[in-house]
């Protein structure tokens, strides 16, 4: 489309007086540029002013009210003036469980209270930044410079950066990949690739555990000239960091998995939606895509999230890419027939896609021989909190939580509780800790594997504060679309607050129970469905409430 006055060019030509292109169809086609545009302004100015929003609105074009609705949806986009540099410091449950509370007190001593400008800098608390194995983490937005994520980080470092000390992220160089799996896939043909994925019986590693083969065939069989592959790298579940770890280990494995998936389902374009705070992984992926060049055989675009847990939900993620508020859609229709931009879309988690080159090279049967009948292959678990060696551990399906804690060097101190599956998961009972972490055993024993997060709490941890923090997380992250979740997460927070203060009544407990099952039964998406899990399990095993 020609640049004209009507689409924001400053110099008006005589042709502009007599012709303009654009209109509704162009606006629809370009709406997907909205979030990147907001990011660009945020990165360069530090916040999105009314003038900047109007300029974006004119250029895309999109109505200012809609652009504002999108901007205010995301934590990492500010629509009010902020100091030039803002450090978002993780103090979430895994950090607390690991006893990393010193950073916050150091920051208070060194810089001042949270959310209070000091010079050109300010620090605020952040939900889990997903760097749990590395130590305390901070994501720092800097007007005019690239945002950076540092872990482990000290209060001194943060203070220096907020003062303007130049800091860049050290990322290892990427080395070209041979894409042997992709070559093999092309030699086999698309249908044969899908057949191997079916034979592998691999289930999605994002939490929903849907059989990948069914998805892949669904997209391949769906009608439409345009199809997408979307990689969900918006890993935001507290205590979960495996996807980030995988990308940092080998970005080419993910690119190869995406390329094979795109080939196998006939996709025309691929997206990687990566969590906005995952700076190093994003930089590595960008470099790797440059090095890979045309080798993947498909255009792969990286899209940055902007601080919204809900965007890990697949349909919310689509809306986010499309430039709308990252709210979920009612399913059906499912992404396989109507996903990104309404086209058939294969959306898989990073861990799932990374497993693909191996499945293609070694065969689906080889993959399926690992693990159990229903839970095939290897699985990554993120063990964090009060353990000696927090980290990502790969095991064959069938390991128990206790075994994984042992792999992580065992617990530090006396174990008070174990949270499985992150904030959306549940606190385990003593029995549950010895249940094999497979989909089938988990289902029978009422354990959510979720994202594979295992957070260990010892007796030092204040479990009422931890539970309150989880309730707070959901109230903060609920997108607000449906009533059960919008109101329910907030009511849950109020009641948990009262319980934590020791003022729990039978009426409160009854209400909490009611709110929990209405969220689970009537919410539109997984966020609402799981928002009561941790709180309910904390009550059930006596971490909060009467027994505390």
């Amino acid at each position, binding site marked *: 489309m020609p640049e004209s006055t009507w689409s924001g060019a400053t110099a008006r030509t005589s042709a502009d007086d007599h*012709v303009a292109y654009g209109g509704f169809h162009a606006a629809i086609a370009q709406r997907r540029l909205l979030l990147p545009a907001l990011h660009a302004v945020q990165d360069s100015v530090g916040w999105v002013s009314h003038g900047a929003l109007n300029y974006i609105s004119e250029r895309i074009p999109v109505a200012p009210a809609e652009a504002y609705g999108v901007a205010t949806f995301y934590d990492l986009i500010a629509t009010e003036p902020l100091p030039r540099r803002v450090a978002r410091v993780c103090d979430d449950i895994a950090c607390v469980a690991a006893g990393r509370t010193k950073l916050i007190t150091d920051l208070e001593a060194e810089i001042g209270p949270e959310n209070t400008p000091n010079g050109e800098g300010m620090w605020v608390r952040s939900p889990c930044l997903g760097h749990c194995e590395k130590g305390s983490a901070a994501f720092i937005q800097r007007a005019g410079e690239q945002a950076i994520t540092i872990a482990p980080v000290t209060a001194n470092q943060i203070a220096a950066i907020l003062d303007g000390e130049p800091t860049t992220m050290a990322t290892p160089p990427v080395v070209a990949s041979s894409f042997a799996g992709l070559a093999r896939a092309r030699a086999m043909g698309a249908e044969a690739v899908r057949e191997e994925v079916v034979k592998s019986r691999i289930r999605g590693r994002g939490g929903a555990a849907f059989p990948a083969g069914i998805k892949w065939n669904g997209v391949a069989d769906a009608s439409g000239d345009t199809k997408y592959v979307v990689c969900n790298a918006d890993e935001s579940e507290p205590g979960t960091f495996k996807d980030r770890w995988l990308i940092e280990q080998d970005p080419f494995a993910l690119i190869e998995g995406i390329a094979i998936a795109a080939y196998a389902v006939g996709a025309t374009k691929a997206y990687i939606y990566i969590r906005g705070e995952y700076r190093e992984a994003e930089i590595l992926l960008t470099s790797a895509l440059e090095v890979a060049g045309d080798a993947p055989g498909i255009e792969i675009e990286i899209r940055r999230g902007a601080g919204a847990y809900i965007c890990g939900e697949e349909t919310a993620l689509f809306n986010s890419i499309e430039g709308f508020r990252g709210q979920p859609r009612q399913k059906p229709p499912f992404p396989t027939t109507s996903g990104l931009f309404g086209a058939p879309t294969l959306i898989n988690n990073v861990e799932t896609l990374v497993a693909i080159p191996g499945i293609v090279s070694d065969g689906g049967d080889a993959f399926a021989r690992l693990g159990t009948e229903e839970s095939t292959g290897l699985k990554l678990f993120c063990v964090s909190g009060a353990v000696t060696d927090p980290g990502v551990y790969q095991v064959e399906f069938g390991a128990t939580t206790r075994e994984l804690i042992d792999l992580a060097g065992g617990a530090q101190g006396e174990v008070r509780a174990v949270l499985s599956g992150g904030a959306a998961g549940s606190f385990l009972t003593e029995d549950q800790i010895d249940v094999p972490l497979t989909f089938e055993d988990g289902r029978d024993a009422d354990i959510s594997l979720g994202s594979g997060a295992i957070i260990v709490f010892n007796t030092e941890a204040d479990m009422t504060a931890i539970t309150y923090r989880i309730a707070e997380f959901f109230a903060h992250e609920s997108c607000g679309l449906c009533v059960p979740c919008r109101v329910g997460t907030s009511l849950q927070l109020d009641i948990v607050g009262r319980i934590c203060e020791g003022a729990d009544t039978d009426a409160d407990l009854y209400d909490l129970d009611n709110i929990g099952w209405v969220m689970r039964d009537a919410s539109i998406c997984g966020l609402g469905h799981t928002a009561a899990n941790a709180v309910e399990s904390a009550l059930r095993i006596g971490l909060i409430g009467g027994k505390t």
Partner: protein
Amino acid sequence: MYTVDPRRTESAEWADTWLGIDVGSDIALSNTVAREIIAAGLVNTEFIEHSTSGFEAYAESVQSWTLERGEEVTGVPAEAIRDLARDYAKAETAQLCWTLGITEHANATDNVLSLINLALLTGHVGRWGSGLVPIRGQNNVQGGGDMGSLPNKLPGFQNVTDPDARAKFEAVWGAEIPPEAGWHVSEMIDEMEQGGLTALYVIGENPAQSEADVSRAIRLLEGLDHLVVQDIFLTKTAQIADVVFPAAAGWAETDGTVTSSERRVQRVRKALDPPGNAKDDIEILTLLANSLGHDWEQRDAETIWDELRSLSPMHAGMSYQRLEALDGIQWPCPDEDHPGTQFLHGWLWEDPMPREPAAFSAVEWVPPVDPLDQDFPIRLTTGRRLDSYNTGVQSGGYRSPIRADAVLDMSHEQAADLDVSQGEVVKVVSRRGSIDVQVRLAEGLRHGLVFMPVHAPDVVDVNQLTIDAWDPKSGTAEFKATAIRIDKITRD
């Protein structure tokens, strides 16, 4: 969607392409589009052969309208005209919709004919989804025509010159109908000047404010021997009348029907009692007839409607009961089993053709009557805004937060050139008069083109400026193209 408009309006912003033609170059654009369609071999040959006549002469007449010439006259880049021509010709279905931008010109009828030519060239007429759509600015312009409020028509578009038609009406009405066509409004104004028209009965119009070159119109209205005005307001026209009949508001204080742009006859209903002595139009007319010595009985709206149905075949199937049940019916609707007609001219596609084929009309472009020159270098065009209605009599009363009636819109470039700023009062001068008006900077205009709404004649009377040259075929005046200059008012 393509939008053709001198201004880049909000509708134009929705369009995939906006063609910002110079005011009054509509026929130049149509003819260039036609030539391009013909030159590109995109005409609908089958349709032309089966359903039309006069193609060769027409093709010859547009031969000189190359894209280059089109660009020169319209100002629109040639490639945009080419794209429009090709997209229109290739579209499965396509409609040409227009409103007063086409018809408020001295060559209004030719403007419309030039569009009809395009539909005939491509077969975009008489089919579902394709057609020619004049969008009406008032709720009952169509209904007024349907009911015979035209100088040469009886209700149902039956010709007043047709003795059989007249006889049918005369038998029911018990009166003789003059056999020749009357005058349209622009002719009436001229006849007032010539002395051929000395008494006038105005129902629901405000010519003392709505006519082009309004000073002349007022002078002529004031010079009449007798002026009767029937209106819901004491309008400017009513104020100079000898007799005023206060009327009820048709849409809320009386029962009856109106006909929308899509020929849909719909029921209006009485929701309020009219104030004071105001009366239903039917009652006023009946009382007037009786005081003139006739003996009319007071009838209700439905009875009169049923009489109309008995005389106008296109309305015959539209009983009040059916109009209510179906939320209105589109004419023609010849009998009570007929569902109404969603689109017209389907006969063009019938084989054999039931009527004479549709004729192409060679039309030549002529520039606006009021030319731009050194003294009057700026083109003023007039129009409507969303929240207001015509002379503002009915819409001025509510407090619209977005009202911008009494302003002159101009581009930033124009304002810079004139050294005027937002809100500044300037003097606008045409060959006929001048007014003082506030400047408003507006998007969508270019240097040399300014715009004024027509809604606030009491504050800024734009029709002091407009030219009363009118189209001899339709009687509409050239509101859309006035040559002006803008003088900065310097304060001492």
